[in-house]
């Protein structure tokens, strides 16, 4: 029996995963599939002809041999509408060739060291980003808003130190890479990373001359405290919303982006150039 409800599709989201991380993803993508997306979950394995089944609105294929990944995606994507690949498999095999078939690739792997060097190749054929970058969006917005203050903007070239604390050194590298690639004197920015436990990035402090800008995630992770210290004046402290870190929200945001993300590509490049010099404490 056919589904009697008329559906409006806007895009295909294909999650490529390692077998063990499939179940949580199906639940996440089911939420997206209710909002106009065709959700596909493909776990990689050794099966050349795995069964296809529908689970909670998502199409699930388990154990597919990687070399058939391109074919599977080509046959499942909605024609004429964008396709986003959410890459969660630890092996980058097939990623570059798959990128040529889709519109956007979002990396979401534990250790991106082997993936970030591939970014220029992927960017040549599709838009590319990293879920860590999406998680940084809110922090970047807030930090950028500091630069609307004339005194801060005027001091943009004097910032020379950034201190980042958090659980995820890769996310910290990406944040610092972004600052190094965007600030006028970014190349001489010294970076200090402090290992944290509660969130990928818990705080960031950017300083130079008599200006110190700070962002700190509050304990419940729903809000951030921002502070701007300019000269001898008392620090201006505000609390702002921290953004939704749930995977479905991050992927939904990524789906809104159609163009190439040069800021991300620059940040990854900058992160690679100086990562060895990062001081850790």
């Amino acid at each position, binding site marked *: 029996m056919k589904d009697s409800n*008329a*559906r*409006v599709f*806007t895009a295909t989201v294909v999650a490529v995963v390692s077998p063990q991380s499939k179940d949580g993803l199906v639940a996440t993508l089911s939420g*997206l599939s209710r*909002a*106009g*997306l065709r959700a596909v979950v493909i776990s990689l394995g050794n099966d050349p002809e795995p069964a296809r089944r529908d689970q909670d609105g998502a199409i699930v294929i388990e154990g597919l041999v990687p070399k058939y990944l391109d074919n599977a995606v080509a046959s499942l994507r909605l024609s004429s509408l964008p396709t986003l690949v959410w890459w969660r498999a630890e092996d980058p095999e097939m990623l570059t060739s798959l990128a040529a078939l889709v519109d956007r690739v979002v990396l979401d792997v534990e250790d991106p060291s082997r993936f970030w060097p591939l970014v220029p190749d992927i960017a040549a054929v599709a838009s590319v980003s990293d879920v860590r970058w999406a998680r940084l*969006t*809110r922090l*970047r*917005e*807030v*930090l*950028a*808003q*500091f*630069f*609307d*203050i*004339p005194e801060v*903007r*005027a001091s*943009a070239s004097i910032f020379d130190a950034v201190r980042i604390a958090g659980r995820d050194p890769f996310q910290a590298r990406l944040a610092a890479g972004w*600052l190094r690639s*965007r*600030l*006028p004197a970014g190349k001489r920015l010294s970076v200090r990373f402090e290992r944290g436990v509660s969130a990928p990035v818990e705080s960031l402090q950017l300083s130079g001359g008599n200006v110190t800008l700070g962002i700190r995630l*509050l304990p*419940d992770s*729903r*809000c951030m405290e*921002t502070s*701007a210290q300019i000269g001898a004046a008392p620090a*201006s402290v*505000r*609390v*702002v*919303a921290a*953004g939704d870190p749930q995977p479905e929200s991050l992927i*939904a945001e990524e*789906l*809104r*982006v159609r163009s190439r*993300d*040069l*800021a*991300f590509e*620059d940040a990854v490049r900058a992160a690679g150039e100086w990562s060895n010099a990062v001081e850790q404490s």
Partner: protein
Amino acid sequence: MAQNPLFDGLRIEPAPGPSALVIFGASGDLTRRKLLPAIYQLARSHRLPPAFSIIGVAKSPLDDDGFRKQFRESLKEFAGVDPAGDPVAESLAVHMRYLSGDLSDPALYRALANSIEAIAAGSGVLFYLAIPPVLAPEVGEQLGRAGLTRESNAATWRRVVVEKPFGTDLATARELNRLLHAHFDESQIYRIDHYLGKETVQNLMVFRFANGMFEPIWNRRYIDHVQITAAETVGVERRARYYEGAGALRDMVQNHLMQLLTLIAMEPPVAFTAESVRDRKLDALMAVQPVVVDGERRAVVRAQYRAGWVDGQEVPGYLSEPQVDPISTTETFVGLRLMLDSWRWAGVPFYLRTGKRLPKRTTEIAIQFHRPPLEIFKRVSASPVAPNLLIINVQPDEGISVRFEAKLPGTRMQLAPVMMKFAYGDAFIRAVPEAYETLLLDALIGDSTLFARHDFVETSWALVSPIHDAWRADAATAIPSYEAGEWGPAEAHALVAAQGHRWRTL
């Protein structure tokens, strides 16, 4: 000064710089129901700058804490948010101030200047006049005299939001504009029409100008006529006093329906900029022929609802509503046939109707296309071919539908109309923002695309005022009526039938 180095490549929508919102009428209904919830939602969705303050101004004897309490209550009641322990709500509340006083007292404005200097020095300031229209000129005058409308640099912009109605006729609209222009440049004035903040209304421009397939057929060669309906099931509710002086023509047609009409009829703007869009809308409005009120070529009808049934409830007639004059001739329904003097629309009627106590709450634009020039299926299919329809649902179910003919399954060639529907609610993950969120943010950013310009307002009044004047002069004649729960009076049906058309049954 150089560009913000960190915004480069940041994929966020434009956000206002450091700013303060000054709400006149801070203890009123609009503030509690719409403005404060909208501000909270904007903060929640990261659209406000960290340096954002709110100053409430009103006659009511509140203090800062009282205003904060009202803010929290408003969130609870109208935004469905429990502000207790909500850090975003608390962060906004910390930066809220309240000034109590007489809006005509210069001392109030001196105190306001001091408050702005204390909590928002160097910021832009948006003055929101959430007050009865009659008070707007006085507040504008006092702001000007106090030097609060002066902009010393780009960051310290000053803007004012004025709520409708913008006058009650052409003369009062001109006078209001003259008074506002005495202290504000037109670029500082934001006349708000909440219809323009609705997602589907904004989508109209995207639909028309971001798609190549519609514009070639968007003209008299292909379109037979256009129907714009804004129907309400409610009566006058608590607005009887205002409504008695306004009526459907001035409450709905002069602003909302004229805005919708111009969005359908406008030529493509050269760019999506405020002035370009508003120029083209004005062109369309200026092309509307004056409306004939009487005689054989009559192009407008009015009516008043009688007692009847709506949504399964028995409802009183307009004349029995509280605070309504028992011999009132105020219209609760208006139907119009408008013709435009333009190459694109010559000969295409635009039918507009709006009313209270109609069977269904809906606002839609229906564009009916010509039938095919040759009916080749006439001999094989019993049913006549229905003309194609493009329907834009503005509210409540925002979306776009197309009606076209399809073959009925079977061995015989039989035709039937089918609908293809796009519904906002089904297609997108993001929640549709409230109109006030969109418009408030636009005013803070300085984007006036969705606000009415003075010449649009005056041109609209120039079309509507003669109709109202004629009706007022004819007060002795009984106004037609329709039963509550019906789609208007028989005269409205005759208005479109005269051109061989009929209103859509919604």
